[in-house]
């Protein structure tokens, strides 16, 4: 059985290789190859899952050793896989949602001449992501970690001809690199502390290391997680990442890759457990991010960016939960899975809407679409209900548990974190309702209104344009759109995901299935909040209702202006991602440019100048000395005479001394 693990990765990897090296002759079938291989991987995953269920919970973990990768002295890195319940959860999520999105993309990318390459990249991503979750040591995980980064770089910048896309891709990669520094330093610390960096040995040996070391390692891991999962302060790339085709946003920047950070933390549970300070930091990061994302999400008019903000915020929840330790790990993962379903669904819905609206992304140019694209409306709606935590749907269970756990942390932190989480829930309800209303309800603002016109300053202008090359009915991009439902190949995945977002949560929670499933890996502790669980749940629902209500007051009752009003200070700040990018730009980019420019100058004038100066000096000296050679025999004689005199004097002197 173990030997199947490699197959999980091999299938999409093969796909990537074939599609990227295959050349034009594969254009016709490329997307099918990609989809089939993704699905194959999913099937293998299911088989392994079934096999795993057959074993008793304590020893369900499987290992597969392929070969010794980097053996140097004490440094022994292997290419070996570990498939335990945690990895399994991810495998199913990745391959499952991945396959669906492959299917969806067939329709979505139909008109793009580079579709083959798109599927190649998608497969590459799947392979990398699977490697990330299957690796049995941190270094191999690192490979997957950067692999998904590469894939996301390629996919964000898929429409490379758009400068904005290329920039966004670069930005994503660079910000992630910052996180990677954290990961690599963490690995080095592990190596110097434990002499290894394989999960098993490290996590067993945590007891023997000093808390200081462990805290350092944990914080470095957290830094990595921040980079990958777009947590404050490394969140800035996620918004721009929406430059990528929508399926990419759904798969990579909602369902899977961005949750890798959470995986990393949960995977390193023992280290974090032994480093309370690091845990506190983690919770804080999570809390801050979930507010940050939520606030940003409220202000964006670009539907994808709004969803991106929500993604950020939801991952904030997960990180928060992961930071809570044993009482939170399980729920972090659980929310991760449910979120995978409904957020992917939402994104696909958004994609479907854009598909029908000439790739218009500005919600202010939507409105009243529910009649035109019913399936999209329903699936999107279900996703919406799920994310706001409508009782009975996935989001409700997972999020509620996290809020509960946050309170259960106890002490003032507990209250603060719990409060933040609650508030976040309210805001979530608010901005999601906003999206819902602006898109599917209200009057049809797209009527006699050429779409894809230069959008407002606060909307990424390129975003409005990306349709231009995304599909070849770009020509129609001017002139009134004709909203229509998307083809089956796109709607079916949406339906499936909708189903998932409805029932997944409930299914997991019945009899704490999910807890029992993960317990052996992450060991679960039941946290009991200061106030009864029931109260928490009740308040959750309450705030949710309030959020929805507020949103309805603002966007449901009153008509939505086509041109965004100036808005409050906060709104404007939120539109500009709370000025975080501006900060980066001024401090890092400008500063960096100045630094490099001055260094170039230094290199040229100082370092090089010294050398050239020496040469020039020699020349000058030479020029001066050769004047002595003035051509007059008598002066030559003088020098000889003087020389003789000196010679004699010196000789006598030598004898004297």
């Amino acid at each position, binding site marked *: 059985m173990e030997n199947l693990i490699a197959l999980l990765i091999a299938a999409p990897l093969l796909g990537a290789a074939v599609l990227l090296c295959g050349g034009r002759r594969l254009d016709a079938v490329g997307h099918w190859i990609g989809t089939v291989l993704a699905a194959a991987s999913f099937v293998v995953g299911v088989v392994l899952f079934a096999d795993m269920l057959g074993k008793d919970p304590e020893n369900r973990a499987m290992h597969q050793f392929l070969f010794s990768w980097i053996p140097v002295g004490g440094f022994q890195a292997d290419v070996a896989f570990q498939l335990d319940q945690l990895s399994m959860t991810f495998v199913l999520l990745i391959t499952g949602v991945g396959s669906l999105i492959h299917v969806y993309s067939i329709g979505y990318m139909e008109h793009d001449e580079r579709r083959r390459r798109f599927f190649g990249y998608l497969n590459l991503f799947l392979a990398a992501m699977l490697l990330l979750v299957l690796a049995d040591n941190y270094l191999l995980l690192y490979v997957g970690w950067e692999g998904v980064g590469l894939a996301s770089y390629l996919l964000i910048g898929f429409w*490379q001809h758009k400068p904005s896309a290329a920039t966004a891709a670069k930005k994503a990669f660079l910000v992630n690199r910052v996180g990677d520094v954290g990961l690599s330093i963490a690995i080095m610390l592990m190596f110097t502390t434990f002499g290894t960096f394989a999960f098993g040995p490290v996590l067993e040996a945590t007891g023997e290391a000093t808390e200081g070391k462990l805290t350092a390692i944990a914080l470095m891991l957290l830094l990595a997680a921040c980079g990958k999962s777009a947590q404050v302060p490394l969140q800035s790339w996620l918004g721009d990442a929406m430059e990528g085709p929508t399926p990419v946003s759904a798969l990579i920047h909602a369902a899977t890759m961005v949750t890798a950070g959470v995986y990393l933390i949960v995977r390193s549970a023992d280290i974090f457990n032994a480093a309370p300070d690091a845990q506190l930091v983690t919770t804080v990061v999570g809390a801050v991010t979930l507010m940050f994302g939520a606030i940003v999400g409220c202000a964006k008019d670009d539907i994808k960016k709004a969803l991106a903000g929500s993604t950020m915020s939801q991952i904030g929840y997960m990180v928060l939960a992961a930071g809570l330790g044993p009482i939170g790990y399980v729920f972090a993962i659980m929310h991760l899975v449910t979120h995978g379903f409904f957020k992917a669904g939402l994104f696909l819905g958004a994609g479907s809407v854009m598909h029908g609206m000439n790739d218009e992304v500005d919600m202010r140019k939507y409105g009243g679409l529910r009649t035109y694209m019913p399936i999209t409306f329903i699936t999107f709606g279900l996703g919406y209900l799920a994310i706001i935590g409508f009782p009975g749907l996935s989001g409700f269970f997972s999020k509620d548990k996290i809020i509960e756990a946050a309170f259960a942390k106890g002490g003032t932190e507990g209250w603060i974190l719990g409060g933040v989480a609650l508030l976040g829930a309210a805001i979530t309800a608010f901005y999601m309702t906003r999206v819902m209303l602006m898109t599917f309800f209200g009057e049809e603002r797209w009527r006699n209104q050429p779409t894809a016109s230069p959008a407002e300053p606060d909307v990424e202008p390129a975003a409005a344009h990306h349709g231009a090359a995304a599909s070849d009915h770009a020509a129609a991009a001017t002139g009134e759109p004709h909203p229509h439902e998307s083809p089956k190949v796109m709607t079916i995945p949406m339906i499936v995901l909708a189903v998932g977002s409805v029932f997944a949560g409930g299914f997991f929670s019945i009899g704490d299935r999910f807890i029992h499933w993960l317990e052996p890996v992450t060991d679960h502790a039941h946290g009991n909040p200061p106030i009864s669980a029931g109260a928490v749940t009740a308040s959750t629902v309450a705030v949710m209702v309030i959020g929805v209500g507020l949103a309805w007051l603002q966007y449901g009752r009153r008509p939505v202006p086509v041109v965004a009003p100036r808005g409050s200070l906060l709104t404007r700040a939120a539109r500009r991602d709370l000025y975080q990018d501006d900060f980066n730009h001024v401090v890092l980019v400008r500063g960096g440019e100045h630094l490099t420019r001055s260094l170039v100058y230094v290199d040229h004038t100082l370092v090089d100048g010294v050398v050239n100066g020496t040469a020039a000096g020699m020349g000058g000296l030479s020029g001066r000395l050769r004047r002595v050679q003035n051509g007059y025999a008598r002066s030559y004689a003088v020098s000889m005479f003087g020389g003789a005199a000196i010679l004699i004097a010196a000789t006598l002197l030598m004898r004297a001394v």
Partner: protein
Amino acid sequence: MSFPLLTATAVLPALGAIATAAVPAARRTAAKWLALIVSLATLVLAAVVLVRFDPDGDRYQLTESHAWIKDFGVRYELGVDGIAVAMIALTALLIPFIILAGWHDADPLETGSKRWRPTQGFFALILLVEAMVIISFEATDVFLFYIFFEAMLIPMYFLIGGFGDRAHEHGEAAASTQRSYAAVKFLLYNLVGGLIMLAAVIGLYVVAGNFSLTQIAEARANGTLDMATSTERWLFLGFFFAFAVKAPLWPLHTWLPNAMQESTAPVAVLITAVVDKVGTFAMLRFCLQLFPEASTWATPAILVLALISIIYGALLAVGQRDIKRLVAYASISHFGFIVLGIFAMTSQGQSGATLYMVNHGISTAALMLVAGFLISRRGSRLIADYGGVQKVAPVLAGTFLIGGLATLSLPGLAPFVSEFLVLVGTFARYPVIGIIATVGIVLAALYTLVLYQRTMTGPVKAEVEGMPDLRVRELVVVAPLIVLLIFLGVYPKPVTDIVNPAVKQTLSDVQKKDPQPEVEASK
């Protein structure tokens, strides 16, 4: 005595060079093919060396030893350890690609006399350099090494000064002046380094009485030859200076950007991927073995210099407008890593450094050669002159991207392995330096991606329109390199297995052990 394999490996390209140079002016293509075939034959010989070498055998194998200049205490002594084998393999491997990539770089366009044969000269010189590089990897006699370490400069000098990019943004006249400036700069820098080393070499002879690396190292080890501390340090500095110029280490690096910028891409690869490696290799083989104490003494200073090279090189790469200069500064940064690894004095560091030499050779070759193809199409080295190439020449863009990703040492590609080893090796002994060096990987990503973005993405520039994609010859050059990059990234074991024993030896020369993990240490 057995067949002198090592000599053959070095002599073959030398003979090939003579033969190539002798090809009559009209038969240009014949000369090219001859050179290519010779280089491939050399590759075969190198492969034989690789096979015949037994990693677990003696330290130096396939040794040859003949009297040469008895009055100078010089013997013709050859022998390879794992490190040398790796380097020889790298050299022999890259030359065919270099030749193939430079296939048209030396077709004469100016009218000289009919005896003026640039093409023959170009390929003959490349082979000559190969011969000299290989023998200096093989030499276990300090003097023998020195001779070729120096002699190497002359053919390189002509390659740099004599053959530049076809089109040049400032016109041919400016080009030739800049070229000769670069060539002279290259030569003088290295010559000064070499001459200072000469003083040290003579000093070594006065102290040791012979030049045999093995004998001296042995004598050092068993204490029969003890140098005064000050003497040893001076000699060490003499040697190290020369190698630091060659490597090149900050602040002795400024010749490299000029040289790489002005020479054609294949020659630039020859400089940075092959010739410069002799410098770092020599640090590993000569500095550490001959002057262990002095090496330890100088380590802190050298580490700092290496660190500066890493950051400084990367930052300057970000600031460059010229593709080749950018790659040059990137190389400076990478050489910083190599030196860091060597003087971290840990097995990871030194194995990593050796691996790094190999991988950097391949990755730079990939990146630089593709860049060369790009430049040859547009006739400009300025980044600003490009844009949207991926639209018109996707394969070129793709290979360029892979080369770039290798340069930023993306996991899964060869350079990652070596870079991480170096970092770990450094971190294990000098955590702070290790951490600062790690920042370098962000900068690497920065300059690579900026380069890619500016040249390959965005709207298609008018001049770029209709730019042909990679031709078959060019694909033949790039594809194997990329395959190698991936293979060595996934499965570097073959190389590490060869290198590790040698590194262990070197470490024992300097009486250094890997630091223990704290957990064990605490027990």
